[in-house]
């Protein structure tokens, strides 16, 4: 039996999210998922971006880096390469990870580090009081798009698939048990796991409410869907509107960036000796 409980992650801080915010569901599910995997506060490193999601670190007791807006994934990769035994989870926002950090997301996916990225996908910038995020759907009226969003939205699932992520899933902040399960599977996946989490913003989005989502969401694993085919995963990832799929869309085994580093075949970099035993070998090329 796991000895870690969800309460182990409690801090002296209370959440500052708006009442009803989807972040609560994500937070509860994350605590439960880590506890179920027996990962305690000192056993993992969580890297957060900047945004409503990122404020979670204050009430989530783990080793953490609350970095810069959009830069969680590079920090996570540097940390993972330097201690590949340490579970590293990136907690990101949609604007954070797909706007400012879009390039990092693509390149992380192509490298396939053993990192899980959980994207709080609510279509808005909440912390700056309600501008459109990169995932905002066309027509969505926000403070920065009073006539409605004119751009195509970024789809984190198809983007992750094309870039080379080896685990693609979608969860819903209003479905704690299902989300917990997806988080556990994402963390357990060896490789770059993208978990897009649909999250109603109760303050700045009066369209995509819990009710709006609940009318449309369905579970992939209740159908005869197998997440082993990239083209079929694309079809599912593109479904939006009356029916929106939840669950694991795609999963494959591919060596991680850590697997492919010769220096990481044994102990983590952080535990290796700092001195060079054979200077002559190193210097011979310069003679």
């Amino acid at each position: 039996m796991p000895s870690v409980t969800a309460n182990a992650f409690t801090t002296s801080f209370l959440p500052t999210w708006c009442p009803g915010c989807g972040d609560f569901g994500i937070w509860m599910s994350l605590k439960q998922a880590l506890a179920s995997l027996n990962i305690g506060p000192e056993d993992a490193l969580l890297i957060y971006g900047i945004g409503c999601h990122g404020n979670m670190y204050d009430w989530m007791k783990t080793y953490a880096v609350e970095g810069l807006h959009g830069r969680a994934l590079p920090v996570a990769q540097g940390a993972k390469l330097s201690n590949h035994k340490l579970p590293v989870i990136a907690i990101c926002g949609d604007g954070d990870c797909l706007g400012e950090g879009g390039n990092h997301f693509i390149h992380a996916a192509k490298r396939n580090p053993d990192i899980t990225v959980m994207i709080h996908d609510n279509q808005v910038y909440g912390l700056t009081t309600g501008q459109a995020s990169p995932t905002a759907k066309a027509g969505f009226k926000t403070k920065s798009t009073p006539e409605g969003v004119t751009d195509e939205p970024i789809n984190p699932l198809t983007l992750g698939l094309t870039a080379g992520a080896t685990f693609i899933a979608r969860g819903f902040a209003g479905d704690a048990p299902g989300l917990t399960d997806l988080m556990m599977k994402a963390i357990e996946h060896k490789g770059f796991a993208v978990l897009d989490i649909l999250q109603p913003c109760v303050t700045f989005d009066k369209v995509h409410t819990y009710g709006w989502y609940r009318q449309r969401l369905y579970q992939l694993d209740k159908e005869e869907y197998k997440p082993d085919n990239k083209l079929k995963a694309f079809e599912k990832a593109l479904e939006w509107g009356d029916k929106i799929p939840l669950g694991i869309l795609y999963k494959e085994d591919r060596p991680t960036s850590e697997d492919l580093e010769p220096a990481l075949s044994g102990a983590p970099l952080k535990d290796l000796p700092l001195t060079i035993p054979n200077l002559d070998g190193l210097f011979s090329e310069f003679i």
Partner: protein
Amino acid sequence: MESVTWKIGGEAGFGIMSSGTMLCRTFSRLGYHVLATNEYPSLIRGGHNLVTVRIATQPFESLNKDVHVLVALNKQTVELHKEELSSGAIILFDPKDYEWKQAEFTKEVKLIPVPLADIVKEQKGDPVMRNTVALGTTVALLGADFSAVDSVIHDQFKRKGQEVIDNNIAIAKAGYDFVKTNFANESSVNLGKATQKEQQMIINGSEAVGVGAVRAGLKFAAIYPMTPINSVITFLADHAKELQLVYKQPEDEIAGINMAIGASVVGVRSMVATSGGGFALMVEGLSLAGMIETPLVIDLGMRPGPATGMPTWTAQGELQFAIHAGHGEFPRIILAPGDIKEAYSLTVDAFNLADRYQVPVILLTDKYLNESQWSVPKAHLAGDVVIDRGNFVKETELSADGSFLRYDLKAGGVSPRSVPGMKNGLFYANSYEHDELGHVTEAADKAAAMGDKRMKKFEAIAKDIRPPTVYGDSEAEITFVSWGSTKGPILEAMKLLNAQGKKAKLVHFTWLFPFPSEEVTKLLSPITRLVDVELNATAQLASLIREHTGVTITEKLLQYNGRMLYPEEIVEKVLK
């Protein structure tokens, strides 16, 4: 001759750079002092490439304006460089390119036509191997035995197999024999006896930074390619397996610095390297390192800006940028090597200082230093290295009562560091203003206290600040002030001035920030004639000196055309 300067020029892709390196190795192994610089445009094929090699029996610090041998792999090389030649210089050329005549030169030259292409053809070599013929002819002209270059060619091509080695040696030998047979009496550039008894390395500034980094225990580097720091990448990537380190090519410099910060947070010595444009992208990350007090080493290889500027040329334009880079206020340390030995030792220092004070340390290098190759005694880079990781806690020292405070205010500026994964060492590395554990705070008193904590590092660092090094005559009538790689030409200029009876000295800064105010005030205030020498337009060191000491340097020798100064130019300017 006690000193010979040789130039080889031709189109990019002619193997100009590797000829220079092999010539350096040949004469370094024989015990000569050697320096090679390169000049090339920012492209891969075509365009004009030039390598200049100075070889001397006695130690020297830079090139000078004498040019004794010009090897021309095309007609353009002679056209571009004939005015730089010393009187009586040798021009080695292939008559198939162009039949040069004395009448086409304003000074006396010795024309040595060598059928470079025909020799390659006879030896069944690739046309590009004309540079290897040139290498053989050069060894003959300089009066060395062929055996000296034989082993260098062998080492250069050993990865490519015996056939390639044999072919190259045969081609070089044919060039050597051609000179010995047809110009048997040509001895004007025969070198005097070599004096260096110690084993030497041929190494460029970037490689010296790389050696310093790995000797200091570098384990992680994330470096986006950019001239002039690409040799650091090659060095680290080539040695990643054997030295058990990770070099990762990031998608951009922003990712690079954030990766290096991630590595450092989990306890690994990490670095990035870039030039001005890449550093501009890193600035946000620099501020993060300052805020979360994460050690980090940044090699900032300067080249002329603004914007893309002149990528393959040299400059010293980023001193003030490095000092002021980053939003918000936080301490950083800035060092600037002026030669290979300093590039190596300051890199080792940079890692220790970064850990000791938990701050970013910026090494200001430049294209001239990074890509020029020097002969240096192996011992300069092989001595014992002291590694100081600063205030790292051990897991066994941490108490289970949750009392560990990563940003402990009582610890003075530099608080104890744990790493993720340790029992009882939990912390938050928080880019927001934070309390002692790393939780966010916007409380006025806590914010001020944490700001004070970071700023207290300036006091702590003061213990380590190094005053500038003074070279030359204490009774000097001219005192040069410099930082970085202008050091070499200034030291050579001082020799020329001395020969004319003018006493000169150099105040050379390797430690630029935090600025050694007190020592410099004492040092410079009594001096009547100060000459600031910099490769920028705004006299950035002079303004730093004025800011911190009140000393105003009115006489400035500033050059910002991408070129290194020659000693003769410095002499001319100060005697004017």
